[in-house]
């Protein structure tokens, strides 16, 4: 099973392209449709149903698509780079005619297996974030995971990957000081406001939309002592809920979304983080407002992706507009601190990624074990049947017992070799020596369930509890037989 991550983030692409991608996967339904279509296109392209698991991470700074594809670079699929195939399909799906654009293609990165795990853990631990150490990303990944589970897109591999990433992120947060004083977007927004206004305490803030980032930034401004905050949202209930969250702060007013315009004439700072897919504040609308404000400066922060404020507005004098990319770049230019902590964090991530890849590699041996047992089982049964009465009820138990005895040592060695990253040879050797026919991609869902059980049993076995292993052997042998029967069908 290969883990493939492809996507684009704030480092690899500009906001315009991220916006375009974000629009196509804006809602839950769109994301589900996206996954469905990518799987369909992949099947058409390769002729096999190999995408077993999938998830989408969509935040304002990144859109990443995670896939678990059955089959690896061995066997029939040796020459097929599934990562490249998936990337092509996604770009084609997202950008259509622009598919061949080299610049566009370069914006998309693709990671596979260990690199993918490493990358994913970095993302979850907020090492790949625009603001290193910011806490929002983990929540966003958890939401993505819940959504993938809801649509039953995850399975053994991605479940483990997500859980491991949560664990890894927690370790990074507790064992390093990376999140001790994060330079967040809200911090940057406040600092930028201080470059425009002399005294923030007599300024009024308008919060347009109740997006997570906007919410945090609003709280930050409240901490700085702004005189009043106006909250508006298309769904009024959400605005009310947010107002309730700010219960320690009295000068808050919920206004009707259609009337936010009137507030623009009095508000000095506007935080915009709505889920709208087009501009809410347009160039032609802001000009009369500036006249009405008697040229008093206004600071607009657009934290939404797609952007909700027309970037042209920045050209109007006394209007200062910053979108998420602008703030990100400013932060990046200002960050030379915390690099040491990031180095510590990367060590933790390396450890966890290695741990995960070991576990994942141990999965590769399951089909070999199943086939090997099956083969030995078959030979023993056939040979014993020649000499012993066919109807002897003990024959199956004898066969299983001998199989276990013969294969215990080789299986343990193959598994260990696989975990220690030199397993490919032993697996290949076993396949060649015993002439095993493994087609991992064709394992059906039912078989996978059985495999899972076997895997768990094998995990117990590697702990050295041979007695336990021996006791449970008949049950798992039966399972293996069942698996083979299914395959034969």
């Amino acid at each position, binding site marked *: 099973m290969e883990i493939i991550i492809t996507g684009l983030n704030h480092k690899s692409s500009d906001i315009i392209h991220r916006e375009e991608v974000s629009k196509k996967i804006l809602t839950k339904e769109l994301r589900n449709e996206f996954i469905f279509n990518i799987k369909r296109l992949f099947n058409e392209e390769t002729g096999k149903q190999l995408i077993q698991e999938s998830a989408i991470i969509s935040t304002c700074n990144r859109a990443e698509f995670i896939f678990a594809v059955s089959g690896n670079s061995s066997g029939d699929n040796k020459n097929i780079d599934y990562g490249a195939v998936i990337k092509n399909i996604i770009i084609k799906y997202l950008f259509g005619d622009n598919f061949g654009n080299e610049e566009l293609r370069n914006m998309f990165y693709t990671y596979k297996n260990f690199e993918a795990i490493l990358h994913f853990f970095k993302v979850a631990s907020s090492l790949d974030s625009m603001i290193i150490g910011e806490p929002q990303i983990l929540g966003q990944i958890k939401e993505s995971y819940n959504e993938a589970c809801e649509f039953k897109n995850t399975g053994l591999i991605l479940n483990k990957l997500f859980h491991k990433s949560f664990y890894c992120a927690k370790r990074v947060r507790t064992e390093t000081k990376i999140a001790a004083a994060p*330079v967040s977007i809200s911090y940057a927004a406040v600092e930028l406001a*201080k470059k425009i206004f002399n005294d923030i305490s007599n300024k009024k803030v308008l919060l347009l939309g109740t997006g997570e980032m906007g919410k945090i930034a609003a709280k930050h401004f409240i901490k700085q002592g702004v005189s009043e905050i106006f909250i508006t949202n298309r769904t009024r209930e959400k605005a009310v809920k947010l107002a309730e969250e700010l219960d320690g702060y009295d000068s808050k007013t919920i206004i009707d979304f259609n009337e936010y315009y009137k507030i623009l004439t009095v508000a000095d700072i506007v935080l915009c983080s709505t889920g709208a897919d087009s501009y809410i504040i347009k160039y032609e609308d802001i000009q009369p407002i500036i006249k009405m404000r008697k040229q008093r400066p206004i600071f607009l922060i657009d934290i939404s992706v797609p952007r909700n404020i027309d970037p042209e507005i920045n050209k109007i004098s006394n209007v200062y507009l910053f979108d998420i990319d602008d703030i990100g770049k400013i932060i990046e230019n200002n960050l030379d601190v915390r690099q040491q902590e990031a180095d510590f964090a990367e060590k933790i991530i390396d450890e966890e990624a290695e741990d995960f890849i070991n576990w994942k590699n141990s999965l590769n041996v399951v089909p070999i074990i199943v086939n090997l047992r099956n083969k030995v089982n078959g030979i023993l049964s056939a040979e014993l049947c020649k000499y012993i009465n066919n109807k002897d009820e003990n024959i199956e138990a004898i066969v299983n017992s001998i199989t276990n005895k013969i294969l215990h040592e080789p299986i343990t060695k193959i598994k260990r070799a696989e975990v220690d990253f030199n397993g490919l040879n032993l697996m290949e050797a076993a396949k060649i020596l015993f002439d095993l026919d493994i087609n991992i991609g064709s394992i059906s869902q039912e078989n996978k369930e059985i495999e899972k059980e076997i895997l768990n049993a094998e995990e117990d076995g590697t702990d050295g509890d041979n007695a336990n292993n021996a006791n449970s052997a008949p049950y798992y042998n039966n399972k293996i037989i069942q698996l083979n029967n299914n395959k034969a069908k």
Partner: protein
Amino acid sequence: MIFKNYYFIPILLFFLSYAVLYIKKNNPYNSFIFLIYFTFVIQSVIVIAGLDKYHFTMIIPIDLMIFFNSWILMLIVILFELLYKAKYIVIYATPIVIAALLVSYFAPSMDINAILKVDSWLLIAHIVLILTGDSLFALAFILSLIYILQERKLKLKKNLKIINSGNKNSSGKNEGRLFNFRRNFNYFNLGKGYNLELLDNMNYQCLKLGFPALTAGIVIGIYLSSALFKSVASVKPIEIISLITWLIYAILLHERVAKGLRGNKAAMLSIAGFIMIILTVGFSLYLFPEFHGLK
């Protein structure tokens, strides 16, 4: 010793202040501002000595006049710095004081023969008001330049510093360098008081104070001129150019009060006004001193 040689002392001390700002590693600003204050005291002593030489009649040579002007400008800069707690303003405004001092050093120092005996109080008021107005507008000019640069940074979103790293290099890589431009340049980026609103407010304050001073100065000047030439009707170039300058500031003040003009456009007008002042001074003192009645 020729009196104007004393002018060189504040010039040297001002240069020394900047050298300290660049070279000193610990608390360079404190040493810088101490030296600036010290220089200002020296400058004040020279001004008093210079004016005393002419019995405070204000009928003084051009070089002393410019030196006096630079003193007023420095006084205004220091007052603004203390009033608005915009400490880095001294860093930006002192170069214009140094420029004025240099001009005064090279300016002719011949005595002025007053053509007519005029009421000395009116003459003093005329000179002090005009010089105060000019100095305030000079400060407004500096503030406008900073405003335009700061605004440009915000609009282009380039070189914006949001974290004050305290000008300390933790890695110690550049510690030994005499001119660590990156470190020293931080002073020009990290002035905490340098928000656009404050710059604009200070600019407005300069205008509010400078305009009445300039107006009163010009009115007294016209009165003195008429008394001098016995006729108000004879319009001299100095009066025309003064009127243009006055008009620029009048428009600026009107637009500010009536239409709330501020920011970039106000800064541009301030710059234009100051250029006119430089022209006026150039006209009146160097190119056509006769038009001012100085000859």
